[in-house]
């Protein structure tokens, strides 16, 4: 099938303003949007830039705004989108070039919530024991691939870029509710601010955006509850 791929282009070394470029691409219905972008790159316009690596939704490189929604380009099939495909960079991050955005700020927020197991007692010779139920408690948030689809879909983040954002909260949740972890208080202190978890207005865009199917708003609500009721 023939589709029109419309891409928001911007090369700060050359362009004053971002602009739209359109490309006609022949694709199979089962091709991914990534395949269409690669077709453009390899056969129509070699100057196009985007990130990609694993091409099956695990590495988290190719989150972008596709027909108005944050998706991974490798996880959306062309047939879902019809004959017109619009692709833009994630919102709220500085654009390096075309679909490539600067994610340093995003990773700084991830680092801020201390995303590592905090447990200073000497470990046993074998494993820390954890029951299947305890393990299940934080399973959903272990799936995060840090693609930033959630954070950059969030109107609270668009309104104030200093908001720590859903991805960082999801990763805090992953440790706060891990029975082996002893760092909940440190993390909750980071999140218990106006730019932390309270900035979330439960708009649910993040849930819709997450390519891993994480119930992001629920995780955020659980962190809020932990703060309100010290339920840990």
């Amino acid at each position, binding site marked *: 099938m023939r589709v029109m791929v419309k891409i928001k282009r911007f*090369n*700060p*070394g*050359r362009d004053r303003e971002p602009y739209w470029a359109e490309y006609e691409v022949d694709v199979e219905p*089962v091709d991914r949007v990534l395949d269409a972008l690669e077709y453009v*790159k*390899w*056969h129509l*316009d*070699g*100057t*196009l*830039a*985007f*990130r*990609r*690596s*694993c*091409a*099956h*939704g*695990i*590495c*988290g*490189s190719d989150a972008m705004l596709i027909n108005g929604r944050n998706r991974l380009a490798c*996880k959306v*099939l062309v047939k879902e989108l019809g004959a017109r495909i619009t692709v833009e960079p994630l919102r709220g991050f500085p654009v*390096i*070039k*075309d679909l490539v955005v600067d*994610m340093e700020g995003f*990773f700084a927020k991830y*680092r801020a919530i*201390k*995303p*590592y*197991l905090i*447990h200073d007692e000497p*470990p046993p*010779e*074998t*494993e*820390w*024991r*954890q*029951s*299947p139920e*305890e*393990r299940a408690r*934080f*399973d959903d948030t*272990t*799936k995060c*691939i*840090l693609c930033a689809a959630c954070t950059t879909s969030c109107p609270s983040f668009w309104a104030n870029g200093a908001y720590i954002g859903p991805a960082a909260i999801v990763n805090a949740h992953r*440790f706060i509710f*891990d029975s*082996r*972890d002893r760092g909940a208080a440190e993390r909750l202190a980071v999140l218990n601010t106006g730019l932390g978890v309270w900035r979330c207005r439960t708009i649910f865009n993040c849930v819709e955006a997450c390519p891993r*199917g994480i119930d992001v708003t629920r995780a955020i609500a659980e962190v809020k509850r932990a703060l309100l009721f010290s339920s840990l």
Partner: protein
Amino acid sequence: MTTVHRYDAVIVGAGGAGLRAALEVARVTPRIAVVSKLYPIRSHTGTAQGGIGAALGNMEEDHWEWHMFDTVKGSDYLADQDAVEIMCQEAIACVYELEHWGLPFDRTPEGKIAQRRFGGHTRNFGEAPVRRACHAADRTGHMILQTLYQQCIKHEVTFFNEFHVVDLLLEDNVCRGVVALSLADGELHVFHAKAVLFATGGFGRMYKVTSNARSLTGDGVAIALRRGIPLEDMEFFQFHPTGIYKLGILISEAARGEGGILRNRQGERFMERYAPTLLDLAPRDIISRCMYTEIREGRGIDGKDYLHLDLTHLGREVIEKKLPDVTDFVRTYLGIDPIREPIPVQPTAHYAMGGIPTDVRGRVIRDEKNTPVLGFYAAGECACVSVHGANRLGTNSLVDILVFGKLAGRDMAEYLRGADFAPLPKDADGPAREECERLLTSNGSESVARLRETLQREMMDKASVFRTQEGLEAMLTTLKELKDRYRRVRIQDKGKIFNMDLQEALELGYLLDLAEVTVVSALARRESRGAHYREDFPKRDDAEWLKHTLAYRLDGEFELRYKPVVITRFQPLERKY
């Protein structure tokens, strides 16, 4: 102006091996940099699915000696047994260490790390499958990569993200650093270092159908070759039996570990005819060959070049709980529900057993006498210790990156105590600058994408699961043509900022070099062993070929030398499953 950085140690690659080594070096010095062409958690370790093998014995009796036997037998007796022994012993401590760092393994009812069956892993030296693969659903690699990166954050390791290493500074057998291209602004950076570790991963992108990420173009391996390091056992490239048809996306062996069955067009469980004991859990080289045989004999589905992986008898609970990501891939990319329908699969290029030769301390060696290169290390898929020999067992790549990442990091840390900065070569970034300039200014007419497509299609056709002298010789001719055309390649993007065009051109150069070594090594080895199957020499020939290949490229010409296999506990036997 080229920026020059100075670090005691530079680690190239931020997958499992690189990060594990970095954590070890970070114990002795804060002056360590991890340089990666990707963001850290984008590396391909994250896509490993089924599990990591270690004889914890949590579900049933198990011993590292059994793991060692399986690995040696799986390797078709080409693995060095001293190295395999270390790996299988150390695997246990490495898994517990990951758990202590927070890795969320699945749990047994008693709260221990859960384990499952995997191809080629058996109890009591081959009797029956054993539960050895420690898992976190089918996301084990994702969890390993995240856990290691998290520890790097905790220990404040310095990262240079999206810095593509394009040269190794090596003179008089002493490593002095690397040269990297910063993708964000197109500038070259020199990293002056006392020691360098390559953990740059594999090069499956030389084949058309592959499970490998776009980034797996063998950069480090090719750079080592260009700098005079021989490459070991490059003829051995693993095809994983169950890639999603046409796409190559991996369906974990865990699917068969949980009870999945391969079937041909008649619905027959054909592995019963080939491997009566282990059936669908025979090692990958064997199953991939059996699948091609079925297809060649007309028993592919609808007579086409694929077969079925049948999970329908496992039930929703097992499929969705134990294989959630795999289920998601099948639903997303095929529109098929594996609970009700079988999955179309074909072998997919998956793993390079060969690579940069190292000893068990991760030191790169330069000849058949195991002479180390001072200050140069390699670990993970880019390296060849050799623990995988002619065919790697499932789960052992994760074991390899952890054990030898750790041991290489430990040796580097020790080396740093006594070593000083060797002076940089004159015009350290000159060759890299020249190569980039040549590509940026070339007015040729060849396209990177078209050359790469030809390379991938031809390699798939002539140098994959079945090989013949005729096919390999034809491939060598094709490669000479492709390399000639590569000199006339023209890229469209002439800019500095995030120039993917330049990056892909450099990567194609690496792939062409590595394809050539693969074919030259495969042509010379006139026997069949593990993943290297010669239709014209279908038998294993221990008298002549129980030895490792070392391929040198000197002034553009290849020279093949050989070194003996280390055999300690297990004498070579005929390999039956």
